[in-house]
């Protein structure tokens, strides 16, 4: 198996790697026979959903698993066996030959040491440097990964760094000793898209500088598409498909891979087709089904699949392998997984035009400021956090409005202000024709009946001590509905669960099922407006697709209106009719989804959209990214005039005189044709997707 693009001997060879936790019948086999190799300069992507064993496998390669994990197989780094080596021997390799970038940058740095010293430590462990030399080199590394004023910032503590900056510091640490292999475990999952784009850029640069091989572990098919050379797909602790990124994306051979690719909503596809979710849930690693672990969820399953677990073997040629007994048929095009999808009841034709539909939620100049206080003994106000600084939008009957933005943009605060149903600090909120500032308790109760909410985390938003029946009956009882039984059964059927499940507790359900319960609870009182706060962001893609489909179906069937708050722009494109993009407490751009996504006018929207990776290798490689500089300014001290000007690429391109307007005059949302509007003095359209 020689690789034409990356010659040379493999730097890292993993063979038959297995990891087991516990023993006896309760043993969990988290990784069951993983094989791969990477060559110098090559990028291998390992893709899988939560529980597929991808992170455990990478920790096993680093020798960082807790002692009670049993690891077998072989991990060879530059020909040296690492498994079973002493901690002392492994420590000599770690950070020097093989290094790692972790998922959560917020907790990856020791809080009590200065960032520069932590990087210097990575150097002095392996190299004979004086403190001063190590410090100097640490500053150079910080500069390399794009930290502004590196000498100054090196003396800062981790909590003074933003998430993106901390991840840069972790990368600086990983490349400090010019390693041969860098393992990146979900390096951008915890970051916003614009910061993700910056960090991926830094990783590319780091790879160029070091010439290292990279193992990129992620669940994000978009990140993989543009970044890696080869992809390995993991399912239930095993690799199920491996091949070059183009082959795997355009000609997948394993039904699971096909399912994954079909379930991702795409930023660049406007048509309102249904996503193809994968049925069922990933198997528990403690109780794998006999035969192929994917068989229970597979649309192409035949009885033979249950007999034995298929081995990973070459299908098209020696470098594209799949673990499926029908891979040959799939390759020849004899069978495909194109599923029979239930049709969404059509709504488009007979729907009256937007202007004539009634407004279910109107928000005008909504303001929410938080006091910023200092001092433990005598609290005093030192400033104001302008979380929401004058936001206006309207949501009409039968419509989905997506409210998008990065963390800290004020989208959740906006939502909470609406849900509070109390007089806002400034501006007006009108729900179903009633101004909420004038509501008395009884009115509030009746408005609540018509406006329900679905929360982000289905694990914590359901009371673990209540049965599903009680959870669904509670809103009914609160609103004095007698005999909630039949309604609860209807609700469960409505969201695709069995009515018999009513007696179970939330812990008996998977994440996707729990979110369905959360949706059923929201629908119990037949609301007209449902507010959804990141309803699918905690779910794996294959599960997420099912929930998105459900939401679309329910909306069409029940004539609901959705206010859909999300940070995932692809999901919003798929589900929303209109979208409002928020930046630092204000609306940057608002309009029809297809208009905004296809011809974004505001420079922030343009940058945001260009930063979202697409699960399409060829398109992704050819895309031009607009990289924003730096981080979100503090909402306690927003820039004067246009809040985006400090990071705006357009601001940099225009002349001095034009800039004055950006500095002194705050742009209002101005119409850009139809109901499309952008809050920019110099907005112009740009094709970024």
């Amino acid at each position: 198996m020689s690789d034409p693009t990356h010659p040379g001997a493999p730097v890292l060879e993993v063979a038959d790697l297995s990891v087991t936790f516990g023993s006896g019948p309760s043993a969990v086999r988290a990784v069951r026979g993983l094989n791969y190799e990477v060559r110098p300069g090559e990028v291998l992507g390992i893709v899988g959903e939560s529980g597929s064993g991808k992170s455990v496998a990478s920790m096993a390669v680093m020798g960082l698993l807790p002692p009670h994990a049993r690891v077998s197989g072989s991990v060879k780094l530059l020909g040296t066996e690492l498994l079973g080596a002493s901690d002392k021997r492994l420590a000599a390799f770690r950070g020097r030959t093989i290094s790692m970038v972790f998922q959560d940058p917020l907790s990856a740095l020791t809080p009590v040491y200065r960032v520069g010293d932590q990087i210097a430590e990575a150097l002095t462990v392996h190299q004979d440097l004086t403190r001063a030399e190590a410090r100097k080199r640490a500053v150079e590394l910080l500069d390399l990964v794009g930290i502004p004023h590196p000498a100054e910032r090196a003396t800062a503590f981790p909590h003074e760094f933003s998430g993106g900056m901390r991840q840069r510091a972790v990368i600086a640490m990983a490349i400090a000793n010019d390693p041969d292999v860098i393992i990146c475990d979900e390096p951008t999952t915890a970051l916003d898209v614009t910061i993700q784009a910056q960090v991926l850029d830094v990783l590319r640069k780091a790879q160029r500088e070091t010439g290292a091989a990279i193992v990129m572990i992620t669940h994000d098919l978009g990140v993989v598409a543009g970044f890696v050379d080869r992809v390995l797909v993991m399912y239930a602790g095993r690799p199920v498909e491996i091949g070059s990124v183009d082959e795997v994306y355009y000609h997948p051979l394993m039904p699971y891979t096909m399912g994954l690719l079909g379930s991702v909503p795409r930023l660049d596809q406007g048509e309102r087709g249904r996503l193809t979710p994968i049925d069922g849930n990933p198997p528990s690693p403690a109780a794998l089904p006999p035969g192929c672990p994917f068989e229970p969820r597979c649309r192409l399953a035949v009885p033979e699949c249950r007999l034995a677990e298929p081995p990973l073997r070459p299908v098209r040629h020696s470098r594209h392998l799949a673990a499926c007994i029908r891979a040959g048929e799939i390759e020849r095009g004899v069978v495909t997984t194109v599923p029979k999808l239930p049709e969404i009841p059509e709504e488009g034709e007979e729907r009256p035009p937007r202007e004539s539909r009634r407004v279910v939620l109107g928000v005008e100049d909504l303001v929410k400021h938080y006091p910023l206080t200092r001092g433990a003994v005598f609290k005093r106000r030192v400033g104001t956090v302008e979380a929401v600084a004058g936001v206006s939008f309207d949501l009409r009957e039968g419509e989905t409005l997506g409210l998008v933005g990065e963390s800290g943009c004020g989208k959740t605060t906006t939502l909470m202000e609406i849900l509070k149903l109390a007089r806002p600090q400034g501006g007006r909120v009108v729900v179903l024709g009633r101004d909420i500032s004038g509501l008395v308790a009884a009115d509030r109760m009746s408005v609540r009946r018509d406006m329900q909410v679905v929360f982000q985390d289905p694990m914590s938003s359901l009371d673990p001590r209540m049965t599903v029946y009680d959870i669904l009956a509670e809103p009914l009882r609160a609103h004095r509905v007698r005999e909630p039984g039949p309604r609860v059964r209807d609700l469960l059927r409505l969201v695709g669960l069995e009515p018999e499940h009513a007696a179970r507790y939330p812990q008996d359900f998977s994440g996707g099922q729990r979110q369905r319960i959360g949706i059923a609870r929201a629908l119990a009182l037949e609301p007209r407006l449902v507010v959804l706060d990141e309803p699918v962001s905690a779910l794996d893609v294959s599960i997420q697709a099912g929930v998105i489909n459900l939401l679309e179906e329910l909306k069409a069937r029940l004539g609901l209106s959705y206010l859909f708050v999300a940070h995932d722009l692809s999901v919003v494109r798929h589900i929303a009719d209109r979208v409002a993009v928020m930046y630092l407490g204000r609306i940057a751009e608002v309009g029809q989804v297809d208009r905004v996504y296809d011809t974004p006018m505001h420079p922030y929207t343009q940058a945001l959209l260009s930063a979202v990776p697409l699960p399409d290798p060829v398109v992704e490689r050819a895309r031009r990214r607009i990289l924003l500089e730096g981080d979100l300014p503090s909402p306690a001290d927003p820039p004067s005039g246009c809040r985006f000007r400090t990071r705006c690429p357009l601001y940099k391109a225009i002349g001095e005189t034009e800039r004055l307007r950006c500095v002194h005059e705050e742009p209002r949302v101005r119409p850009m044709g139809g109901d499309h509007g952008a809050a920019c003095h110099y907005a112009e359209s740009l094709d970024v997707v």
Partner: protein
Amino acid sequence: MAGFLARRLINYVALIVVATSLAYMLAASALDPRSNYEARRPPPPPAVVDARLDELNLNNKTPVFQRYLRWSWSVLHGDFGKTTVGDPVNADLARRAGVTLRLILVGLIVGSVAGVLGGALAAVWQYGWFDRLTTAASFLVLAVPTVVLANMLIIGAVWFNDLVGAQIFLVSGETTPGLEGGFLRGAADRAQHLLLPTLSLSLGLIAVYSRYQRNMMLDVLGADFVRTARAKGLRRSTALTKHALRTALIPAVTYFAFTFGALIVGTTFTEKIFGWHGLGEQLINSIFTNDVNTVAAISCLAAFGVLVAALASDLMQAALDPRVRVG
């Protein structure tokens, strides 16, 4: 930082004033120095008693508030008044504070160092033999009252002394009265006297601190930054001490500093049993002898001690944890 400290100090002074005033009021109204005289046979004439009590500012015929004012005026001038027998409270307490400090300082240092080490090691080897042993031992120590523990230590020490045929452990007082010899001999004698009370005091502290430290350590053992440190190439032991223990120390140390204040009058049993004439012992004595001024003075010292400990705890937290320094 200076502003922060100044505000804290003002706050603390106010708290000390309130605490001490309340203690004085309580002692002055609950304790009855007159009964000390009435118990004498033959009882002194009432006019003599009144004159004596007036002189000492202990006469319960004077309104409490008036006594309080006279007392607080003299406290402002640095004088805590006289005991029921007419000795100055200041001199007595100054001597006793020294005794208590010598006792608890060593006990606290031994207790916190051993507690941190024991707790940290128990966490690193969670569910191993060391962890099980220290867990069992801590609960045993916590379950046994100090009185029993101290007496068991004395019995053990006497047995040991008999076994080796030499006075290794000295079980009563701070020094041997009338000891001859130079400085070294004196220091050794003091150390021998310190051994048992320190042990008795620190065993309890070790038991509490090691539980606390173990939990703190367990919280950070699985932390991402420890993993990062090991991924850098630090060996497990280095990563654990330099990164995990250092971070886990922050809450522990601040908690330790706080207990110091509570110990000032909290070592009564240890002092009583080992014949150390410290503050704890005197607090109990003074309540029995209706010694209002001493009770109030010790309360003031205790409040002062707690607040000094609180301040020390804040300062140590700021020193150890960069996250609280800003702002």
